[in-house]
């Protein structure tokens, strides 16, 4: 099963790379195109964590899956108002497997993917948001005779092509969440399940600790979630703006 999945991922990623390297028939080089300056609307994939039977963190009748979905929809609306296209890995309470989330990310070719969660800690000292990005792990394997035009990647190495951009995405989100006044938390590099198999630039945002009474109260408050969504939208827009020349990728 793993071998089959790896082969599928290799084929999908190889196709993706070839489609980017080889111009379509009749296509003009980008610098000669009259529409080169007009960037298409960037697509952002929003991933509300958990769902279905998996409710994530649960505290006093509040669950992470519902809050993450609400935050994703608010962020999506803010991004659309700013001119982005938005897709969701889930737009209802139903559950979605990690494989399905990764498949969506790899077939839609989004400019970036943001996975939204709420946090838990055993320690009352843990407070505030966290941003996580994947490690740059694994080496791409060049196919003999193909030079650098075609590389083979296993399912677990899908991020190796985008790790640097993921870090930039995380930094943009972190800066927007800081708002210029909060503590500079930066981004934390960690191997998380929501990154598995995703080739697009991706970051996980843990929006606050449901185990912390004040932050639980904020998470339950619609106005606080809306304000948080607007800050996250500013972070995504900053990332997209910095990478406008490549359409976000």
């Amino acid at each position, binding site marked *: 099963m793993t071998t089959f999945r790896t082969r599928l991922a290799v084929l999908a990623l190889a196709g993706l790379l070839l489609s980017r390297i080889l111009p379509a028939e009749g296509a003009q080089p980008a610098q000669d195109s009259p529409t080169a300056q007009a960037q298409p609307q960037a697509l952002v994939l929003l991933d509300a964590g958990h769902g279905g039977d998996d409710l994530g963190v649960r505290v006093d009748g509040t669950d992470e899956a519902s809050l993450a979905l609400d935050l994703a929809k608010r962020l999506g609306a803010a991004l659309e108002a700013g001119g982005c296209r938005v897709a969701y890995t889930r737009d209802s309470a139903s559950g979605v497997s990690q494989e399905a989330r990764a498949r969506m990310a790899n077939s839609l070719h989004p400019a970036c993917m943001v996975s939204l*969660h709420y946090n838990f*800690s055993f320690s009352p*000292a843990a407070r505030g948001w*966290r941003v996580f990005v994947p490690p740059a792990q694994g080496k791409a394997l060049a196919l003999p005779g193909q030079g650098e035009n075609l590389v083979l990647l296993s399912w*677990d190495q899908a991020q190796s092509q985008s790790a640097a951009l993921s870090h930039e995405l995380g930094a943009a989100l972190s800066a927007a969440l800081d708002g210029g006044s909060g503590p500079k938390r930066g981004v934390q590099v*960690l191997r998380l*399940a929501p990154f598995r198999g995703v080739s697009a630039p991706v970051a996980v945002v843990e929006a606050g*600790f449901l*185990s912390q009474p004040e932050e639980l109260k904020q998470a339950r408050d619609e106005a606080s979630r809306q304000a948080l969504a607007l800050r996250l939208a500013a972070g995504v827009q900053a990332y997209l703006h910095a990478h406008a020349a490549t359409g976000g990728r």
Partner: protein
Amino acid sequence: MIDAIRRHPWRSVALILALLALLALAAHRLHRSHGAEARKAAASDLYTGREPKGDVSVFFASATSPMPGHEARAIYLTDSIAARAHQAVQALLQGPKGKGLLPAFPEGASLLGLFIDKQGLCVVDLSLKHPGGTTGEYVSLYCLVHTLADNFPEVQRVQVLLDGQRADTLAGHLDLSQPLDRSSF
């Protein structure tokens, strides 16, 4: 007696059902008690109690810092490194004794088995219901990996199983599809 049953058949059926329920409850409690004894015996199979004792550093969540702390706990210095590691992980799951530290695993978490192979892979089979959160899982796994790798040079990597099965995560966040080591954190 027979007349009483004939006069009140439903009352008799209810009485019999109540007696059967009481018997089932008693049997269940006996079984649980026996299971607890069996588990206790299995734990004491790790050591004879005649071995010398030595301290290991066991990691726990900190009450004041986002990063975990550690405290010294005495274990029996058995010939088997796996038995020493088993005792250290049991101490981790039991929770801290000193002030300023908090449990790194949820109440009820238990260690089903542990072994170390010749390549330095320590397989830890846990049974637990983790509350989740990236930070919550991070602290649990950080404490597990550091408790093992910091005390036992034989342990290079840690593979976590849940109830004897490979697991993707503890509760949806940190990726357990590959073994963890100190550089994972």
